[in-house]
């Protein structure tokens, strides 16, 4: 197929920017009003909703954590009974992993990636809306079951035989299993649309070696989602739920099934999941370090290749969660080696950031405080990770608080601190107002100190033999002081969270107005107004370096000739990002919401009877047909 030749960097021409902005505003604004809210398809609206919803789940998961800490503060405490305690730790882990950590990272990606790539929306805006709705409905589904008495109580990874039909009666485990499918469908939708957005919709000139590091991390993360999430849908829905509802035998050894297979399939997802949460956080770190060191991140290629390698190696580690199951030693040795190897690829990135900080002109914003907190906490978590990769040590500390300390150091240190840093860094962009830096730093110190006071003693408790998931302990074991310190730390974390929330709300209401680029950063997202208009770029930029806003303004080039009367975006080549053709994105629609609602009704019923899947299929098909039905005038004529 031949294209009319493109004249690169043509001469200056006269255009009416105000006129174009008015036309774009008519074309791109999400509909208003109550029903309009359900029809929104701009990536900004959907991204903001993802992040806000996920933060609500963070709050719920945090309250659950506090309840556990209160229970464990003193020996032989009776604040929560054993059954309730089991439910609370299950809900805490499930909420944090499935309803907070993954969705919040996806939401930030949805918001930031199109802006960083210099395009107007994600490649599939309606799929994006659908993914959000199915996620919200999954969260509501789990908590609706929990509040009506069906609360899962088998841990966030629900091992059979405990979670099987024989030992877990009631609907709690079924609700847990099906909630996974809701949230994984949502994550898969986001992964596909981000991959295609990053591959096909980049600004002209943004060749692969000029993609912002954050977008690389989202690209690799999305690939990992594509290959990891189907495994957990098999584990939770095909294996566990079907065994419970229609008497299949996946985990039933009496009929040839194997409970250990559930662990394999679950952790084939579960280990990559950690990196699915963690890679986007590394992207935040790169962006924030670059902006506040005021130099390009050192070792771009090494950073990208390390992340790609992390993506691959992450799929070869899952058995280190299963060292205590008695697998053949030769296999275990391989997984030890792989688990230690991943420290190398992560270490390379840490050294690249240190080199950047060392040689840059450092500016200690609140966001940078969180990045230094990340470096400190995450390196400690990584060190205990290398320790746990060793089988003899793992066998001793398996299922103890040492492991609890380790994964909170890597997940909170590795993902939550960068996320909070990102929140402070991009707050002006998203809301159009400056966040209070002083309160931000105050909340950082509370969270940082509270975190270490809570979780550091757990290392020692674990080495002293305190096992996970016990609801209480006798005083004679000598665990009382460590637990009391941890509970005090949890209180400090809660205080830090409160300061963070107060700061976010008050800055959103009364913060000083933010201009387009308050940090003088280099990324394309800082070239548009704060908050960005729904079409992002009135004229898409043409990119000539990795740091577009730090290049000579005289050389800046923009794209003209895009139609403003429909939602047009430019499609560019995968490697060189040369302009290829234009394409029209679909507009606002209620159908993604209706399709998600139809499928959700069927899934909710499926924990009672298999035939509800047919309801999900029927209602989902109706929704999707409506979604794709051609609108009366043939809507995409040249």
């Amino acid at each position: 197929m031949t294209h009319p030749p493109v004249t690169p960097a043509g001469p200056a021409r006269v255009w009416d920017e105000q006129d174009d902005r008015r036309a774009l505003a008519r074309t791109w604004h999400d509909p208003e009003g109550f029903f309009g809210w359900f029809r929104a398809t701009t990536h900004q609206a959907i991204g903001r909703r993802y992040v806000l919803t996920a933060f609500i789940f963070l709050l719920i998961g945090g309250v659950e954590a506090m309840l556990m800490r209160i229970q464990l503060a003193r020996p032989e405490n009776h604040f929560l009974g054993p059954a309730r305690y089991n439910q609370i730790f299950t809900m805490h882990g499930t909420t944090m992993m499935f309803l907070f950590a993954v969705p919040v990272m996806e939401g930030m990606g949805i918001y930031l990636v199109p802006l960083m790539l210099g395009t107007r929306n994600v490649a599939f805006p309606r799929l994006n809306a659908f993914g959000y709705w199915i996620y919200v409905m999954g969260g509501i589904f789990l908590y609706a079951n929990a509040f009506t008495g069906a609360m899962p109580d088998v841990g966030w990874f629900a091992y059979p035989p405990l979670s099987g039909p024989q030992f877990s009666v009631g609907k709690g485990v079924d609700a847990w299993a099906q909630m996974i499918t809701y949230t994984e469908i949502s994550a898969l939708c986001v992964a596909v649309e981000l991959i295609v957005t990053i591959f096909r919709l980049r600004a002209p000139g943004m060749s692969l070696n000029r993609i912002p590091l954050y977008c690389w991390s989202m690209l690799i993360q999305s690939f990992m989602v594509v290959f990891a999430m189907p495994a957990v849908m098999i584990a939770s829905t095909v294996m566990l739920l079907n065994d419970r509802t229609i008497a299949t035998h996946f985990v039933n050894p009496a009929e040839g099934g194997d409970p250990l297979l559930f662990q394999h399939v679950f952790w084939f997802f579960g280990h990559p999941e950690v990196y699915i949460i963690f890679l986007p956080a590394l992207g935040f770190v790169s962006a924030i370090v670059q902006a506040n060191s005021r130099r390009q991140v050192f070792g771009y290629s090494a950073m990208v290749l390390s992340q790609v390698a992390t993506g691959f190696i992450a799929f070869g580690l899952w058995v280190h969660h299963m060292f205590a199951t008695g697998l053949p030693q030769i296999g275990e040795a391989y997984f030890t080696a792989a688990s230690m190897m991943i420290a190398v690829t992560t270490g390379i990135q840490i050294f690249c950031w240190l080199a950047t900080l060392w040689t840059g002109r450092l500016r200690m914003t609140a966001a940078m405080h969180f990045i230094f907190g990340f470096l400190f906490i995450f390196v400690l978590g990584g060190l205990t990770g290398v320790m746990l990769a060793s089988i003899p040590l793992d066998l001793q500390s398996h299922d103890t608080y040492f492991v609890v300390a380790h994964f909170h150091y890597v997940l909170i240190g590795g993902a939550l601190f960068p996320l909070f840093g990102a929140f402070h860094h991009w707050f002006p962009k998203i809301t159009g107002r400056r966040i209070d830096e002083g309160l931000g730093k105050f909340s950082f110190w509370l969270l940082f100190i509270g975190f270490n006071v809570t979780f550091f003693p757990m290392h020692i408790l674990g080495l002293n033999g305190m096992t996970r998931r016990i609801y209480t302990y006798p005083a004679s074991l000598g665990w009382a002081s460590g637990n009391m310190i941890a509970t005090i730390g949890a209180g400090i974390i809660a205080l830090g969270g409160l300061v963070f929330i107060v700061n976010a709300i008050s800055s959103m209401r009364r913060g000083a107005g933010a201009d387009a680029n308050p940090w003088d950063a280099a990324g394309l997202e800082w070239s548009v107004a704060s908050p960005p208009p729904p079409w992002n770029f009135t004229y898409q930029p043409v990119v000539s370096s990795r740091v577009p806003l730090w290049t000579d303004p005289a050389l800046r080039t923009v794209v003209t000739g895009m139609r403003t009367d429909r939602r047009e975006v430019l499609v560019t080549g995968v490697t060189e990002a040369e302009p290829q053709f234009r394409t029209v994105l679909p507009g606002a629609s209620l159908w993604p919401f209706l399709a998600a609602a139809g499928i959700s009704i069927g899934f909710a019923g499926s924990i009672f009877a298999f035939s509800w899947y047919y309801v999900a299929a029927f209602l989902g098909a109706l929704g999707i047909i409506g979604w794709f039905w051609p609108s009366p005038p043939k809507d995409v004529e040249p």
Partner: protein
Amino acid sequence: MSPTRTLDVSGLPAYEISNRAPLWWGQLFMALIEGALFCMLIAMYFYLRLSIDVWPPPGVKPPGLTLPTLALIPLVLSAGGSYAASEGAKRDDRRMMLLGMGGNLALAIVFLVLRFIEWNTFNFTWAADIHGTLVWSILFLHTFDVIADLLMTAILIGIVADNKHGPKQRLGVHVDSVLWYFLVLIWLPLYVAVYWGPRLVGSR
């Protein structure tokens, strides 16, 4: 900021029906997701099969070979129909799209009918033992995907027959064929696992 240079893209086509379209890429990754799911099922089949001496368990008749092997013929041929439809979509040839999709749909229905006849010959259910569980899970999930894709094809036939199609719907016809190629291709290893698995892989 006032840029001094511009890149005028008004001369570029306003759409493209080819493997460069974003929708084609989206469909590719949706196929990869389903592929990852089916690969996991195949891995589970052999993991569980190798831990059991007698496969299928005593009293269970292994699934017959004749009907499913015969059914491969209409299935593979149906991909030719979707190829014709996608070529027709690229050329905006309404007749070719209708003939291609019609052929795809008709041959796929023959395949499904043969599959349902074959299911009646099974002397086990998913609840019988682990062999039944695996076989029925693979067959159910693949059949579910096949029916979903055929429904999409049938609706596209309706839209094109009604002359309601623009470039967007033609692109739909093109990517519909991508999903169908995937469903045909992925069936081959699944077929080998379900029907040749009990015959080729010996006990431990």
